[in-house]
């Protein structure tokens, strides 16, 4: 009997501790890191994704629905990155506060200066085009910092008692991200200064924001149309074009098709470096600084011929 009482009391304590925190659920691990940086110690943050997935192609898994049903705030990238699954997760959660337009709904892409917003008509003959612009902004510290205001607004709206803490912490984090962006620019400065043309090609246009913040120019993408595996003919033409243009390295996410990338290297002689696109806590990649170092050092290594 005493043991049952002790178990009940500890469960009650755990719930009370949980109730005193703002429960934030994010779509990606990178947003989870950012919310934790801004919101600690007042937030408990859970990322729905593990960082290894392609966030375009995820199912509305029941476990996601359960986690969102308990959330005070849901933060998403937006810009149609999660359009295939997040609306279903939100509507099935039965949680009115986190529905779009609710005070607990935080779409971080809304305050980011979006790149590559298509001009003119967009339809699926162009591939998997994002009509609102390129959603992969989190890879650039400068652009990730632009998402901070939506997170602060959501946190302050749900937890006004700690609004001042969130605002102050946000300024600190914004400064850290600017410093990180500056550090990236310094690392790539010698390369950028020397480049007479593009030196790098991407498999999919996922690195536009990172390149933009560092002053790197991209040769374009190996994909002819976004989200469409390149045909044999496309591979040949883009490999030869990249080779002739003196491209030094191709960069791709870990999810990009390995067979296609190997074929590209075979045809062009250009090495491909595959990098994580998000934090992967289960694999030990828990800090955004570490992710940035991994990305930028990979690029520098191949463009400068050695680790800086």
């Amino acid at each position, binding site marked *: 009997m005493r043991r049952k009482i002790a178990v009940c009391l500890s469960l009650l304590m755990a719930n009370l501790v949980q109730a005193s925190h703002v429960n934030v659920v994010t779509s990606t691990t990178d947003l989870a890191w950012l919310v934790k940086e801004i919101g600690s110690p007042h937030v408990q943050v859970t990322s729905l994704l593990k960082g290894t*997935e*392609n966030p*375009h*192609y*995820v*199912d*509305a*898994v*029941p*476990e996601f*629905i*359960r986690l969102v*049903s*308990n959330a005070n705030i849901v933060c998403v990238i937006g810009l*149609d990155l999660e*359009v*295939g*699954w997040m*609306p*279903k997760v*939100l*509507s*099935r*959660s*039965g*949680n*009115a506060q986190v*529905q779009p*337009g609710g005070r607990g709904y935080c779409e971080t892409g809304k305050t980011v200066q979006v790149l590559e917003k298509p001009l003119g*008509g967009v339809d*699926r003959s162009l591939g*998997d085009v994002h009509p609102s612009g390129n959603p992969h902004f989190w890879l650039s510290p400068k652009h990730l910092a632009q998402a901070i205001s939506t997170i602060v607004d959501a946190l302050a709206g749900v937890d006004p008692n700690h609004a001042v803490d969130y605002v102050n912490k946000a300024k600190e984090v914004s400064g850290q991200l600017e410093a990180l962006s500056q550090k990236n620019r310094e690392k790539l400065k010698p390369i950028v200064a020397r480049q007479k043309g593009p030196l790098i090609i991407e498999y999919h246009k996922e690195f536009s924001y990172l390149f933009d913040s560092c002053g790197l120019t991209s040769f374009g993408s190996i994909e002819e149309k976004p*989200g*469409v*595996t390149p045909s044999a003919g496309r591979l040949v033409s883009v490999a030869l074009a990249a080779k002739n243009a003196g491209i030094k390295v191709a960069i791709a996410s870990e*999810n990009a098709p390995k067979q296609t990338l190997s074929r590209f290297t075979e045809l062009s002689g250009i090495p491909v470096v595959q990098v994580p696109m998000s934090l992967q806590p289960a694999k030990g990649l828990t800090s955004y600084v570490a992710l940035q170092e991994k990305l930028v050092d990979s690029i520098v290594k191949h463009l400068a011929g050695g680790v800086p």
Partner: protein
Amino acid sequence: MRAIFLLYAMTTASLVSSLAFGEDLGGLKTSVSVDTNSQFGLSKGSEGNDRISVREAELLLYSPADHMFDGQLNVAAHSEGGVMHLEVHEAYLGSSKLIPRSRFRLGHFFLGVGRINQIHRHDWPFTTAPRYHREFFAYEGAQDTGLEYTYLFPLPFFLEVTAGLTNGYVFGHDHSTGSKPKTPTHYARAVTYFSMPGEGGAQLGLNYLGRTDNAGTKKTLAGLDFTAKWREAQVLKYLIQAEAWHQWLNSTRQWGFYLFPQAHIGDGFYVGARLDYYTDTSLTYGGGGAYPNGNLTIVPSLLYRSSEFVTARLSLTQDFERQGTTTQSSQMIEFQAVFFLGAHPAHDF
């Protein structure tokens, strides 16, 4: 009927063009799906209709109706025996904002039981319904008008319960007005989710449905449904889907099941094979003794997915029908092509 089709086509065209030119439709999302199905019998007695046909063309409209409620309308034109029928598949008002941890819908919809009964046919992982599903539900799914409520329990694991009550004047897919039942259609489903080894996940559902029609025929259904998926990047690497159902129809008993595994083999291609079985265990010989009967169907299939929006499937149906001491077999080949236009389809689990 031609006038209705013209109206349907004009409504679709004007809606799509309105969206293309950015007119304010209050956040209305539109999606069109078309399912073409070509069935050719390879043996005498097969179910193939030996023609290429548009099995279904569906227009789905959905959006918030206001700050509290959402609305959905699904109008479909589909071929029945070579004749196109236009009908409302779903038209309901719902909300997931009114009652915490809950959602409900009021109107006309596919009943929230089972796995494939709830999913539009063009989204099934196979082309045609297993025999038990056609016998117990309908060629696509059982739909009716009523109220359905779903509650998500506040537990450290996913457990969701659905209960529904609908008119029950008709059951399955019936174009008649029907007649008032002695007991309306009522159903419940409990579903849970758990991880599977190798970064997968699985959903298990327990289902019940009951109805007594105007003539006093009592129908009771009990079933299990199971879906397991393993995803890698944009590819559904493995899928296992299965359902098993038992029906009591007054004093008769029938049961059936299907098992469908599928695997990705590269470059947008998937192979799968469905095994399904149906039998009536209450059939007896005139003089007594169980009458052996059963339908066993094996359907290997090859799926090609050009993108999330276009799929093509080739299936070969091998059907064995046993009645008493006689077993007859038939074969049919089917080619299905499905495409989606408009709003991004949801990635349901």
